[in-house]
């Protein structure tokens, strides 16, 4: 037993409080929006929008209105548009309270790798390096292990970094860990996962 994608997204949504401006990455993080309930959360899309609404109804797609994943979206009552320099100014300036992002690897000192696998096609970091460097809190949501069963929560990242010492909290299918002095601290285990299972799936140092 462990959390599925939607349960991970629901757990990540618990990190968000009323009034927060939040950036959600592609993949599982996108699902977080489905679980914020009646919390007053404003979503940023780093291509120049605060107050990102849901996908449009068929026929209402607007080519001038897309999110950072290039998907057609809609606006809301609170929406504001701005240019890319302003958008990343607010990201770099710490105005975005939290980013929830996917990852390939996270290390025990909060290093994050999520943009490049050497020898494979490199697509680019997009806005990921800016987000992890700038936002108030970086929350990673990912599977705890790769498809070969190897831990993605490591002593040191093996892939090129997106940011060094930037991750605050890791939410995986097995549980929740915080980056603290000396390593990771277990915050909670996923439903049906024992602390022993979480520890044995984790390469990184877990402190008390």
């Amino acid at each position: 037993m462990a959390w599925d994608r939607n349960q991970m997204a629901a757990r990540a949504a618990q990190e968000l409080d009323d009034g927060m401006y939040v950036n959600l990455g592609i993949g599982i993080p996108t699902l977080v929006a489905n679980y914020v309930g009646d919390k007053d959360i404003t979503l940023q899309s780093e291509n120049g929008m605060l107050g990102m609404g849901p996908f449009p109804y068929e026929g209402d797609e607007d080519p001038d209105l897309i999110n950072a994943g290039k998907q057609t979206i809609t606006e809301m009552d609170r929406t504001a548009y701005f240019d890319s320099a302003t958008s990343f100014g607010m990201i770099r300036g710490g105005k975005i309270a939290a980013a929830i992002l996917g990852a390939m690897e996270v290390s025990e000192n909060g290093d994050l790798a999520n943009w490049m696998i050497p020898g494979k096609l490199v697509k680019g970091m997009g806005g990921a390096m800016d987000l992890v460097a700038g936002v108030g809190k970086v929350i990673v949501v990912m599977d705890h292990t790769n498809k070969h069963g190897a831990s993605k929560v490591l002593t040191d990242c093996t892939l090129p970094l997106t940011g060094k010492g930037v991750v605050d909290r890791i939410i995986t299918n097995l549980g929740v860990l915080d980056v603290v002095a000396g390593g990771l601290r277990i915050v909670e285990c996923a439903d049906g996962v024992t602390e022993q299972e979480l520890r044995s799936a984790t390469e990184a140092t877990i402190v008390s």
Partner: protein
Amino acid sequence: MKKVYGSAAEALEGLLKDDMLIAAGGFGLCGIPEMLIDAIVDSGVKNLTVASNNAGVDGFGLGKLLDSRQIKKMMSSYVGENAEFMRQYLSGELELEFNPQGTLAERMRAGGCGIPGFYTKTGVGTVIAEGKDVKTWGDQDYILEEGIFADLAIVKAWKADTTGNCIFRKTARNFNPPAAMCGKICVMEVEEIVQPGELDPDHIHLPGIYVHRIVQGEHEKRIEQRTVRQREGV
């Protein structure tokens, strides 16, 4: 002072030369200068360096300039949507300088604002920081990034008046203002040209001082990822 031109080719006349640096607005295929890209393809100018967040898709947007092998180097943050790009890059035909997206946008704005360099923590501790000056404030390292000063900016707005004051529409604004700012000359294509006074001076996103030539025309405005939701009860 005449800024309005009859076609994209006329608007670019005398401005294109081999080996030049062009800054282009747009994010994905949203808000890209379609007409000006087509005119640059037709011009045959070679060995371009293009600063643009993305590289278009195969056969559309900047992808056309890749297909025609007119681009020598791209300065971008994400180029994942273009197979021909990857082919040329992996074969060594195309140079690529990756910039974090916010760093690219700020470098353009900085160039336009007479700022040759600024410090940012974006990319510290990553491959992006290699070879760059580092300075420390508090206990945080920051790297020096340089302003981009482009020979030419090609951008797309929604409406402009004949003096070049213009407005953008929704997320099609994106990189267009910073790209326009960093161009020594800026050529802008728009969906509609209006007379001075038709745009509220408080609503103008980019004043005409940044815009040297304007051309109006039809835009395909292709959608890259058409995502929709179901109407309830349907």
